């Protein structure tokens, strides 16, 4: 009996150490999700509501999916809030200049390439040019949102006045009727600076979110009330509250935390990054202005973007555009989180706007236009220097 009591005591004591036998949380720098520091309790609660709507809400026929769609949930395009996989790459078509989309009547601007059973998905009209957009990472978007228009324009150099071969222009876009202007917005004949999306055509995260519900999942809201299948205005399938929770979630996702920052290879690579002019467009440091979220106000952060459009050359010109961008212009993508892309892209890299580059080096070598000089400087680096530069990029 005594023996059994001992065994029983041992058996029952094992679960008391339960936390030690459960998987530990990954380090903060190993993941992209999680809120920015400094949120209030109320803000953290709202972050959680947005997190659930973003990552857990899977739409079905019953809850409004489609009938034409690309994906069934926000999270299926942005696994772990990171970059997406070609499986959910979006296809946009029908616009070749700033005059607008010529194929709105044929389902433009976005192809809904999937359909619920008994429906047929869209196809790209024969005469339309198109481009593919791999879903970007969601992290740190609130910081980008809080950069002032004045700061963005200060980085623009449309006429290349400094003669460095790099210009940089803002994408001036018309606003949707539900958009409220952010403080300090600069008006350019009724158009405003877009800063989100591959072409920088979305003014803010509400436009990005409501558009994604509508164009990616076929979910109608009061913001985007038209069904992508019928073209008719129909009852909302997602509440304004849910959309706002998701917007708050996206705004308050933390910025990616760099890794190995004191590694000599990383430090050397960082020096090369500036030395060969990568940082002319992938601007190392930006500042936020006043934000309604205190944790985002007046912060200095390192996104490695200038939020401006640049000519990237013929190889990356798909013949499709948005807003006032030319077809060969792309908004500088933030490089933060680049080293964590593999953990959301299934263990591989799918880089550049359409995921065509399968490595960081391939992405660099596909740079053209304004970036041709820098690309050639990269080519001229020694093998070791190239490796250091890539090590630095992977540390972001």
């Amino acid at each position, binding site marked *: 009996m005594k023996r059994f009591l001992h065994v029983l005591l041992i058996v029952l004591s094992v679960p008391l150490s339960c936390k030690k*036998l459960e*998987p530990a949380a990954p380090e903060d720098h190993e993941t992209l999700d999680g809120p920015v520091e400094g949120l209030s309790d109320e803000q953290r609660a709202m972050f959680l509501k947005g997190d659930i709507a973003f990552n857990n809400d899977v739409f079905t026929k019953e809850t409004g999916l489609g009938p034409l769609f690309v994906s069934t949930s926000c999270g299926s395009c942005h696994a772990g809030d990171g970059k997406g*996989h070609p499986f959910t790459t979006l296809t946009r078509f029908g616009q070749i200049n700033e005059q607008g989309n010529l194929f709105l009547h044929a389902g433009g601007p976005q192809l809904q390439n999937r359909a619920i059973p008994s429906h047929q998905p869209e196809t790209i009209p024969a005469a339309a040019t198109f481009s593919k957009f791999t879903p970007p990472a969601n992290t740190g978007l609130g910081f980008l949102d809080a950069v002032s228009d004045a700061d963005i324009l200060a980085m623009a150099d449309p006429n290349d006045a400094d003669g460095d071969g790099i210009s940089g222009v803002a994408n001036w876009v018309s606003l949707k009727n539900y958009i409220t202007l952010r403080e300090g917005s600069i008006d350019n004949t009724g158009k405003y600076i877009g800063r989100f999306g591959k072409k920088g055509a979305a003014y803010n995260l509400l436009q990005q979110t409501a558009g994604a519900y509508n164009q990616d999942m076929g979910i109608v809201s009061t913001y985007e009330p038209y069904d992508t299948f019928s073209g008719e205005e129909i009852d909302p399938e997602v509440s304004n509250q849910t959309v706002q929770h998701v917007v708050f979630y996206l705004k308050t996702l933390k910025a990616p935390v760099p890794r190995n920052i004191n590694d000599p290879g990383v430090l050397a690579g960082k020096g090369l990054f500036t030395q060969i002019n990568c940082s002319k467009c992938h601007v190392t440091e930006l500042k936020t202005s006043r934000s309604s979220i205190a944790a985002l106000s007046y912060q200095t952060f390192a996104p490695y973007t200038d939020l401006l459009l640049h000519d990237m050359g013929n190889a990356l010109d798909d013949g499709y555009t948005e807003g006032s961008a030319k077809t060969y212009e792309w908004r500088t993508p933030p490089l933060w989180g680049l080293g964590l892309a593999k953990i959301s892209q*299934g263990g591989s890299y799918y880089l550049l706007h359409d995921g065509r580059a399968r490595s960081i080096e391939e992405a660099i070598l596909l740079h053209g236009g304004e970036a041709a000089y820098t690309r050639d400087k990269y080519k001229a680096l020694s093998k070791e220097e190239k490796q250091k530069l890539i090590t630095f990029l992977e540390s972001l």
Partner: protein
Amino acid sequence: MKKLLLLTTGLIITTTSIGQIDATLLRKRHVDTTGTMLNMDAVYNRPFLSLGKLPVALGGYAEANWQHLGTDGITEGHQFQMRRLTLFVASSIAKRIKFLSEIEFEDGTKEINIEFAAVDVELHPLLNVRSGIIMNPIGAFNQNHDGPKWEFVDRPVSATQLLPATWSNVGFGLYGKLFKKNWVFAYEAYLTNGFNDRIIDNREGKTFLPAAKKNRDRFEESFNGVPLATVKAAVRHLKIAELGVSYMSGIYNKFEDDGLQLDKKRAVNVLALDGNMVVPELHTSINAEWAWIFVDVPETYTQQYAKTQYGGFIDIIQPCHRGKIFGFENSTINIACRLEYVDWNVGKFRETGGNIADHLWGIMPGISWRPSAQTVLRLNYKYYNKIDMLGNPPARTAGFQCGIATYF
């Protein structure tokens, strides 16, 4: 007023007298241990209590547990759960006509289901008719799911999140058995209501047969009018093992409505193998099941919803002590281990040619104490490694579960 008083008094007397039934009058009908029982007999091979000569027998089981699980550093903390309370009522209507029903309350009263309610008419050992709400004989676990029979708090993932245990439907069919020396052969064949389109349109975002159970109308009407056929054949050598092969086939979509064609007929097919044995001398019990699922998913739909899935589990139970413990004469201590694997999406991405992951593997070592054959106290450590469809780093879940399950 006088009538009301009389009625109330009468009710009190009746209630009291029922409450004072001599417990010795309750006869326990024991579980068959002759070795000739097959998995298909599980539904009747349960302990029942009957009262005197009443043709009705009652039974049931309950399962409760504590658990503390964490996923990548995030835990829900200590959870106390009443997973199931199940009641059986069996009655012998005539010599070879019997009725059994099983009503289950899951997670408190969150789900209340009639899992089984069927009349069996025995015409010949090889020809019996069963009709009502039946448990489709796919795999082994679906018909043999009583908590007290298992050494683990959780049901196998492949049985509940790949196959839809407990999967019951309204229908009828035939079953029978043949005995030859040390061999037992058996078959079951049923036609029932079947699946619906929720299996590829659900909040799980994956082909998920259990989602069909969300259709509340399924006991009232067939979703598309096409019966689901389920057949199973099993063979047992009394000294070696039992092997079963089962197949389920039906149409899951509403291909026409109100006389109008909406889609082509889309099939769901399931093949399962199951087996169990007790290793002689060692008394090690091995119980395993593996299933393949094939679903006709439209090409124009999302690849999240798989055309092929498979998975299964193996439970290995080793008795390590038999004897008196805390006064329970026939106690048994078992050590146990369950290994599981489920792939919810077998295929390759059209866009990249890369493998679609969406799979899970798990290991669950445990220890159990059976103070009697009908009651089990169990302590499990569970470790699951779940990978999303893109193949990103896994979500790791682990922790302890401790619970009790007993027939009553």
